[in-house]
C-alpha cells in the first residue's frame, strides 16, 4: 500500500474486521436460536392454541413492518454501494433513510404492543392467565422474541446513527504510526497507491529522526472507492442491520401467519 514495509503492517485488516463481524453475527443468530428452539417445541406441543392466539395479532401491521424492514435493508445496502463509489452525499442520505425506517418499525411495534397491553394482554396479566396454557406460552414467546428483536433494532439504529455522525463530522482520517524500527523510515517517502499501483498521494521525504509518523487521509475517492475506516465500519454495521432483518423474516411468519 505504501512505500515502506512498516506501513503495510499497520494497515488495518479489513477482512479480519469482517470475519470478526460475521462471528459476532453467528452468536446473535444462536442467541435467537435458543428462542426459536423454545418456539418450535411449544408450537409442536400446542399447535391449536398457537393457532388461536396468533389470530390476536394483526397481520397487516406485521406485513407493513416486514416491508419497512426489507426496505431499510435495501437503503442500507445502497448506502454502502454509494460509499464504494465515493458518493458520500448519497451514502449519508440513504443511511438517514435507513435510520428513519428503523424508527418507523419501532414506532409500529410500540403501538402494536400498546394495543395488546390495553387489551390486558401482557406477561402475567390476569386476563392472559385465564387463557389456555399454549396461548399463554405463545404470548410469552411473542413478547420476549419481538421485544428482544426490537432491542436489536434499537441498537442497530444507534450504531447507524453513530456511523452517520462519523461520516458527517470526520471527513479526515488520521493515522499515527508508532513502534519499533521507526528510525528506519528516515529519508523514506510514504505513499498511498491506487488500483494500478499509481501514487495517489505521497508524502515529503521524512527527514529528522523519526519517533512516529502521522498521516491524515482526506475523504477522497481513489479510483472509484474510498479507502478509509468508515468504509469497513459502515459495511460491518450494515451486516448487523441485515441480520436483524433476517431474524424478523422468521419472526413474521412464525407469529403473524400461523392463524
Amino acid at each position: 500500500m505504501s512505500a515502506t514495509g512498516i506501513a503495510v503492517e499497520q494497515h488495518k485488516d479489513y477482512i479480519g474486521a469482517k470475519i470478526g463481524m460475521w462471528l459476532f453475527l453467528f452468536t446473535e443468530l444462536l442467541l435467537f436460536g435458543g428462542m426459536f428452539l423454545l418456539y418450535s417445541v411449544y408450537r409442536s406441543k400446542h399447535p391449536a392454541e398457537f393457532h388461536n392466539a396468533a389470530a390476536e395479532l394483526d397481520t397487516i401491521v406485521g406485513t407493513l413492518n416486514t416491508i419497512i424492514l426489507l426496505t431499510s435493508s435495501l437503503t442500507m445496502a445502497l448506502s454502502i454501494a454509494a460509499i464504494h463509489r465515493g458518493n458520500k452525499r448519497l451514502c449519508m442520505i440513504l443511511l438517514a433513510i435507513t435510520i428513519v425506517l428503523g424508527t418507523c418499525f419501532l414506532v409500529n411495534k410500540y403501538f402494536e404492543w400498546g394495543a395488546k397491553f390495553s387489551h390486558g394482554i401482557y406477561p402475567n396479566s390476569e386476563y392472559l392467565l385465564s387463557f389456555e396454557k399454549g396461548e399463554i406460552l405463545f404470548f410469552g414467546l411473542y413478547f420476549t422474541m419481538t421485544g428482544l428483536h426490537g432491542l436489536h433494532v434499537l441498537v442497530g439504529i444507534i450504531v447507524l446513527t453513530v456511523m452517520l455522525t462519523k461520516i458527517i463530522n470526520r471527513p479526515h482520517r488520521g493515522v499515527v504510526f508508532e513502534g519499533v524500527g521507526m528510525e528506519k523510515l528516515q529519508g523514506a517517502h510514504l505513499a498511498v497507491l491506487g488500483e494500478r499501483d499509481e501514487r495517489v498521494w505521497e508524502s515529503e521525504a521524512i527527514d529528522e529522526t523519526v519517533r512516529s509518523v502521522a498521516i491524515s487521509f482526506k475523504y477522497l475517492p481513489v479510483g472509484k472507492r474510498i479507502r478509509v475506516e468508515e468504509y469497513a465500519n459502515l459495511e460491518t454495521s450494515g451486516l448487523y442491520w441485515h441480520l436483524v432483518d433476517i431474524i424478523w423474516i422468521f419472526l413474521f411468519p412464525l407469529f403473524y401467519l400461523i392463524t
Partner: protein
Amino acid sequence: MGNRAIAEHAPAAGFYEEKGRFSGLFAWIFSTDHKRIGLLYMISILILFSVGVVFGFLMRLELVSPGKTIMEPQTYNSIFTLHGVIMIFLFIIPGLPAAFGNFFLPIQIGARDVAFPRLNLLSWWLYISGVVFALLALFTGSGPPDTGWTFYAPYSTQTGTNVSLAVFAAFILGFSSILTGLNFVTTIHRLRAPGMSWFRMPLFPWSLYATGWVQLLATPIIGITLLLVIFERLFGVGVFDPLKGGDPILYQHLFWIYSHPAVYIMILPAMGVISEIIPVHAHRTIFGYRFIAYSSLAIAGLGSLVWGHHMFVSGQSYTADVVFSLLTFLVAIPSAIKVFNWVSTLYKGSIVMETPLLYALSFIFLFSIGGLSGLMQGALSVNVHIHDTAFIVGHFHYVMFGGTGFGFFGALHHWFPKMFGRMYNKTHSRIAWFFLFVGFNMLYFPMFILGWMGMPRRYYDYLPQFHTWHLMSTIGSWILISGLILMFANLIRSLRKGERVGSDPWGGSTLEWSISSPPPKENFEEIPRIDHGPYEFKGASKE
C-alpha cells in the same frame, strides 16, 4: 495488590517497562497489549480461584462430620452455589484461554497482537463487571443465590434469594467469553506469520481455535437461557413455569446445550498446554501431530451433540436417552486418541523431569480417571444409580481440577520463566506438586466411593454410614491446601527473587522461545517467516 506489584518489581525488561499513554496501574488496566491483558486476566482469575477454593474448603469443613459443624443449611447451599459459579464461570472457563491464550497465542503464531486488541481489553472489563455483579449478588437483595450453579428452573425462578443478579453476572461473563473466542478465531485466521500454514501451527493455538468456536456457538444459548430466567422472575413470561404450560425440562436442554460444550471449553486449552509441555521436556517432536489437531476439532464438534447425558433421569424421552448415551461414548474417542499420542511422545525422547512435565503427566493420569468415570456416567443404567451423587462430584473435580487445574498449573510452571524472565525454585515446586497430587487424590477419590454408596450431592447433612469417607476427603483437602500455598508462595517469591533466565530455559522449539524473556512490547522486531513444523528440536535425530 497484584497489578502494581508486578509493574514495579518485575525485572526491568521486556514489555513491562514499555509505557503507553498512562502510567502506573492505568498502564495496565487500559492497556491493549495482549500480554498485559493476559496477565490482568491471570491475576484476576487467580484471586477468584482463591475465593472459590476457600468456599470449597468451607464445604469440606462442614462435611467433616454429620449434622451441623460450622454453618446452617442455607449457608451451605449458597456456598456450593457460589463455589460452582466462581469455579466454572470465573475460573475455569476463562482460565487458560484468557490468561495464557492471550499471552501466548499471538506469540506462538508470530503476530504482534490479537486481531482486535481493544475488544480484548473490553472483554477483560466485562469479566471484571461480571465479577462485581456476582459479588453484589452476595450482599444485596435477600441473601446470596442458593440454586446450585445449574440454576435449574423452576426452583431458580421461585426462590426468594438474589438469583437475578447472579444470573445477570453469568450473562455478562458469557459475553466476555464470546469476545475472547471471537478474537482468537479471527486472530488465527488472519494473523499467522507468513509461511505458517494451518499444519505448522503449534497445538496450543489449535486447541484455542477449537475452543473459540465452541465459545462462539454455545455461549449465546446460555445467554438467552439466563435472560429467560431473569424475565421469568421479573415478568412471569411463563416459558419454564409448569403452571403456565412451560416445561422445566426445556430449561435443562438449553442449559446443557451450552454447559456440556462448556466442559470442552475448559478442557481443550488444557489439552493444548499438555501438547506443548510434553514435546519440550521430552525434547522430541510430538507423536501424531495431525491426529491431535483434528481430535481437538472432533471433540469440539461431537461435544456439541451429547448434552442430554446430564438428563437421563430428568424425565426426557427414552429415545433421547439412548441417542445421547451413544454419542457420549463416541466423544470419548478423540480424548483417547490424544492420551495415546501423548504417551507415545515420551517414547524415545530425552526426558528431563522438570516440574511442568510432572504436572503434564499427572494431568494425563487424573484426566484419565476423570474421563473413565465419565464413561461410567454415560452408561444409561449406571447413570441412573450415580446421577446427582458424590460420584459426579468426583468425576468433575477429576476432569476439571485434575485435568484443567493441573494443566493450568503446568502452564504456569512451563511459561513462568518466559512471562517474568525468572525461574522459580525447582525443588520447592516439586514438593508443592507432590502435596497437590496426594492431597488431590485423597480429597476426591473417596467421592467415587461415596457416590457409589448412594451419597447424594448438594447435601448439607448425611447419614452416619458415609462418615469415614467424608472424613478422609476433608483431610485430603488439608493436604491440598499445603500444596497450593507452597506453590503460590514459591511462584510469588520468584517474581522478584528468582534467578534470571535467558530466552529459552527448556530448549523449546515454538516461537515464544525465540524471543527474549520477558517478551518485548511488540513481540517480534521482524515478523518471522516459518518454513517448518512447530516441534523440531535441535539435536533430535529424525526418523
